[in-house]
């Protein structure tokens, strides 16, 4: 019964999220926003690359950078999305307290709202990747994709990012309007440290040690291995040097690492969320507004 209630909450929260994201906006603006924004973000890197190389996109690193930038949307949007839900409900619509007193689990509500963000982001990622393959020669071939690895790492990676987002969502209860900076900061750490747009071997040695702890580093690598195996094999042994810094690690190790990380982050996010929720209730911050 409780499970059914949670599933109903997730479904209705997802519907509400969709209405807020899409139906309440002008359809043309929403479609433009969904396509132009992700492609522009990636094109910044494309132009940076072209300025340095003179336009040669037939290069394993170009595909590495492009795919990383496209997949990063998941990290940025999901982390941003979860904290934005709390910020938006509390500060703008002032409906957080109503959601709170409703006979539903707040956790399930957040998961439902996040699910729709993942769906919208997936559309952006697919469009960006398709644009890269068709217009810029990004090295992805549907015949060469390792679908099993792709499905496994997508499921584990998404779970890991979602539970991390929930922990950050908990912290949002306690911070003012700057709370949206928290997720940008955590997403920023991943952007620099997790080999998103450049291999971790470009970082100083001390930073590489941190990179090898972060689950996102492994998620990115496994997604690239699944989507562009040839380019990753090439980068794994450029003149006998492992450019990615991770080519010696097996797919199985990565999957196990992601599964353990997700479990650890899940426990951590529950604890952080529960603590922040308690403090927010005690200090009367549930219906706090700070839109100065």
């Amino acid at each position, binding site marked *: 019964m409780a499970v059914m209630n949670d599933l109903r909450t997730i479904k209705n929260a997802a519907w509400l999220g969709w209405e807020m994201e899409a139906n309440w*906006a002008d359809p043309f603006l929403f479609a433009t926003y969904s396509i132009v924004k992700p492609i522009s*973000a990636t094109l*910044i890197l494309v132009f940076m690359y072209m300025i*340095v190389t003179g336009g040669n996109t037939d290069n394993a690193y170009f595909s590495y950078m492009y795919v990383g930038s496209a997949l990063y949307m998941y990290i940025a949007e999901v982390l941003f999305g979860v904290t934005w839900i709390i910020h938006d409900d509390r500060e703008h619509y002032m409906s957080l307290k109503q959601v709170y007193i409703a006979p539903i689990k707040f956790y399930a509500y957040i998961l439902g709202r996040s699910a729709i963000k993942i769906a919208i982001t997936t559309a952006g990622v697919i469009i960006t990747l398709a644009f890269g393959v068709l217009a810029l020669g990004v090295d992805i071939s549907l015949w060469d994709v390792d679908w099993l690895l792709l499905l496994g790492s997508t499921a584990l990676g998404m779970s890991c990012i979602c539970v991390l987002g929930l922990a950050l969502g908990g912290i949002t209860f306690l911070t*003012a*309007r700057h709370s949206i*900076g928290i997720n940008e900061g955590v997403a920023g750490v991943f952007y620099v440290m997790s080999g998103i747009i*450049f291999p971790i071997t470009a970082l100083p040695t001390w930073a590489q040690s941190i990179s090898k702890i972060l689950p996102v580093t492994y998620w990115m690598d496994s997604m690239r291995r699944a989507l562009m195996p040839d380019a990753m094999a090439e980068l794994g042994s450029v003149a006998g040097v492992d450019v990615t810094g991770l080519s010696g690690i097996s797919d199985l190790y990565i999957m196990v690492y992601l599964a353990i990380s997700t479990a650890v982050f899940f426990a951590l996010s529950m604890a952080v969320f529960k603590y922040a929720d308690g403090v927010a209730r005690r200090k009367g911050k549930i219906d706090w507004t700070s839109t100065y």
Partner: protein
Amino acid sequence: MTDGWVIKNLRAIKGRAYPRVIGAIREPSWVFFEVVLPLFTVAAFAYVYQFMDAREELIGYVVLGGAMTAFWLNVLWSMAAQFYWEKETGNLQLYMIAPTSRMSILAGMALGGMLSTTVNAASTLVIGAFIFNIAFDVVDPLMLIAIFLATMVALYGMGMMFASLYMLFGREAHHLSNLLTDPVYLASGFYFPVKFLGAAVAAGASVIPITLGLDALRQLFFTAGAEDAFLSLEAELALLVGLCALFMVLAHYSLRYMEYLGKATGRLTLRWQ
């Protein structure tokens, strides 16, 4: 225009700036977010250039562009979109009945937000330069000040004009602001010289004051900046001054028109549309 009118508007500017400054002092967590967080994007782009063995100036351009994003985001989220949020929270009608210019209210927002924005931009510039060993070579400080001030006035004038549009926007204000971040970073050449986008795109993007401002600042901060320039410094300063006048006039009329339109259609105080 009487002395009383001027004093009244100056007080409006001070009054609207006050909650932002006080809010920033009372909730100092923003310092961490404004100082540390912008560095991550800058660092990532700088490492991309480093990984590709790019020339040093390009890394410098990334740091400079990263610093200037603070002003663009401030205009977009804390000024243009702010009228939408003010409508949602019920403050907009108070601004409308206040016997002051709407532009004074917006100028107050700009001034109040300037504290955190300047901290953000300055820290990105200084820490970014330190981490990536960037050498700034300012040969004409007066020109630098003139270009920066002209860019800011034109940019915030543009923000005031946007505010009039946002005043009538519904929930899509959030989408519109998002839409004006990454595409503008791309078109205005925040992380690479805009001339590489081609003359036509660069000319089109020059409507956004920060495009010309950044191009000029690159020339003033880096000796190799002139080679990557889209236009000469003098031309860019002249165009920026023109944009200052244009956006201020446009902001004045569009605010008046949108206010009238909002009243006529009953949308000025309509919340959650």
